[in-house]
C-alpha cells in the first residue's frame, strides 16, 4: 500500500516540524494573566530576546495556578504578585530565592451610577465597607489569583468576614481578570482590578475607576527560580539569567518604559529590599 506508506512519512515529517522549536534556547515562565494581558510581556520580552537570544515562553495563569505549575516543575521561573503565596512556595522548597521586581497598583472599578457612593474616595477600606453595607453588586475573581488574594485581604482589613457576609450581591466568578471585567461591565458591578489590565481593557461599558491611590492598593511582583534540586529539568542558568536581567538597571529601565496612552503601568523596585 504505497499510499499508506507515503501518508505515514508525511505524518512523521509534520510531527518533526511541530517539535522543531525545541532546538532553540528558551525558558518557560509561569506568570499571571495581569502581566500578560496588560501587554507588559509583549513589550518586555522582545527586548530581552534581542539582547540574549533566549526566547521566553510565558504561560499565563492565575497566581495560584502559576505557582502550582512551578510546584510540578513544568516551569523554570515563576513571576507572580502575591507575597504570602510566594513565601509559602519558598518554604515548601520549590523555589530558590525571591526577588522583588516591580509593583503596580489595584484600582477599584465601579459603575458611573455608583450605588455605594464611593467615587473619588482615597480610603479603600472605607469604600469596601460601603459596598458591603449597600449590598451593591461586586464581582470577585475567585480564582486564587494575586488579585483575588488582595481582594480577600482588603475585606479582612475592612473588618468584614466575606464568607459570611456574601450574598447574591457578591458574584464569585472564578475567572481571569479580563473575563471578570467583562462580567462586571455587563452587570454594572464593582470590581477590584490591577491598573495594567484595566488600561488595556476595551469593553468598559459604564465602568470607570472610582477609588485609587491608597497605599494598601499597591501590588508587588516577585520572581523566583524554580528549585533545580527538587526539579532537575529546570533550566537553572537560563532561568537565573532572566531573573538577573529583570532586576538589573537595564531590565528595570525597560519595565518603566512600558506605557499605555502615555501612562506608566509598572514601577520597578528591585532595589527595595523590603518589597
Amino acid at each position: 500500500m504505497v499510499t499508506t506508506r507515503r501518508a505515514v512519512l508525511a505524518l512523521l515529517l509534520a510531527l518533526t516540524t511541530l517539535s522543531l522549536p525545541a532546538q532553540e534556547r528558551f525558558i518557560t515562565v509561569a506568570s499571571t494573566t495581569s502581566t500578560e494581558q496588560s501587554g507588559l510581556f509583549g513589550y518586555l520580552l522582545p527586548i530581552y530576546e534581542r539582547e540574549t537570544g533566549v526566547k521566553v515562553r510565558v504561560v499565563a495563569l492565575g497566581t495560584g495556578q502559576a505557582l502550582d505549575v512551578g510546584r510540578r516543575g513544568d516551569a523554570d521561573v515563576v513571576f507572580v504578585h502575591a507575597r504570602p503565596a510566594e513565601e509559602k512556595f519558598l518554604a515548601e522548597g520549590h523555589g530558590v530565592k525571591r526577588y522583588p521586581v516591580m509593583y503596580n497598583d489595584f484600582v477599584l472599578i465601579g459603575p458611573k451610577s455608583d450605588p455605594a457612593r464611593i467615587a473619588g474616595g482615597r480610603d479603600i477600606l472605607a469604600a469596601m465597607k460601603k459596598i458591603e453595607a449597600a449590598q451593591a453588586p461586586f464581582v470577585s475573581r475567585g480564582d486564587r489569583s494575586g488579585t483575588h488574594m488582595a481582594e480577600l485581604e482588603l475585606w479582612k482589613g475592612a473588618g468584614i468576614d466575606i464568607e459570611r457576609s456574601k450574598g447574591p450581591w457578591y458574584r464569585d466568578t472564578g475567572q481571569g481578570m479580563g473575563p471578570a471585567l467583562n462580567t462586571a461591565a455587563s452587570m454594572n458591578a464593582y470590581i477590584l482590578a490591577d491598573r495594567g489590565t484595566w488600561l488595556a481593557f476595551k469593553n468598559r461599558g459604564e465602568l470607570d475607576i472610582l477609588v485609587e491611590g491608597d497605599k494598601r492598593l499597591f501590588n508587588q511582583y516577585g520572581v523566583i527560580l524554580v528549585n533545580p534540586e527538587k526539579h532537575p529539568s529546570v533550566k537553572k542558568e537560563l532561568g537565573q539569567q532572566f531573573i538577573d536581567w529583570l532586576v538589573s538597571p537595564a531590565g528595570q529601565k525597560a519595565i518603566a518604559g512600558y506605557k499605555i496612552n502615555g501612562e506608566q503601568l509598572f514601577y520597578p523596585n528591585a532595589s527595595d529590599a523590603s518589597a
Partner: protein
Amino acid sequence: MSAGTQALQLITSADPKLVEIVWLSLKVSLTAVAIACAVGLPLGAMIAVGRFAGRHTLIVVVNALMGLPPVVVGLIVYLLLSRAGPLGAMGLLFTPSAMVIAQAVLITPIVAALSRQVVEDAWDEYREQLRSLGETKLGAAMTLLWDLRYSLFTIVLAGFGRAAAEVGAVMIVGGNIDGVTRVMTTAIALETSKGDLPLALGLGLVLLAIVLALNATAYVVKETAQKRYG
C-alpha cells in the same frame, strides 16, 4: 470597528502573527486528525466485522467517549505530560505536540464510533461475498475501509471540525504561549478575556472562513473522485 470589517482587514493584510497562528492551528488539527484516523478507522472497522466477547460493551464505551469533555481530556493529558507526571521526561508539555496528543485523544473515539457504524451497516451487504473469497476479518475490515471511503471521508471532516473548534484541551496542555502554542481558538479566547470583542469576533470569522474553505475543497475533491472512480 465592526467585527466584519476587522475580519476582512485581518485577512487582506495577511498580518504575519495571524498567519503564524492560522498555520499552527491547521498543523495541529490536521496532524491530530491523521493520528485519530490511523487509530480510529481500523479500530472501528475491526469492531464492526469482529465477533468477540464484550463487543457490545466496547461499542457502548466507544460511543460514550465521543462525549468526552475537551477540558477533561486536557486535564488528563496535562497530568500525564507534566514533569511531575509519568511522561514528564519527554518534555512535551506546553508544546504543539502536547496539543496534537490532546486533540487526537479527543477525536479518535469520534472516528472509531462513526466508522464502526458505517462499516457495520455495509457489512451486511459484503459479509457473505468476502467470507466466500476467503478474506480474513482483518482483510475484510481494511477492504471495507477503502470501499466506504466516501462515507468515511465525511467522518474525517467531522473529526477535523471538532479538533479545529476546541479550545479547552489545547489551552490547558499548550498554555497559549505567544508564538509557540497560540492557535486560533486560544487567541480568540484571549482577546475575548481582554475585552477586545470586535477583534475576537473578527478572528472567529477568519477561523470560520478557513474551515469553510477547507470543507468546500474537500467536498469538490470527493465529488470529483466519486464521479470518476465510482
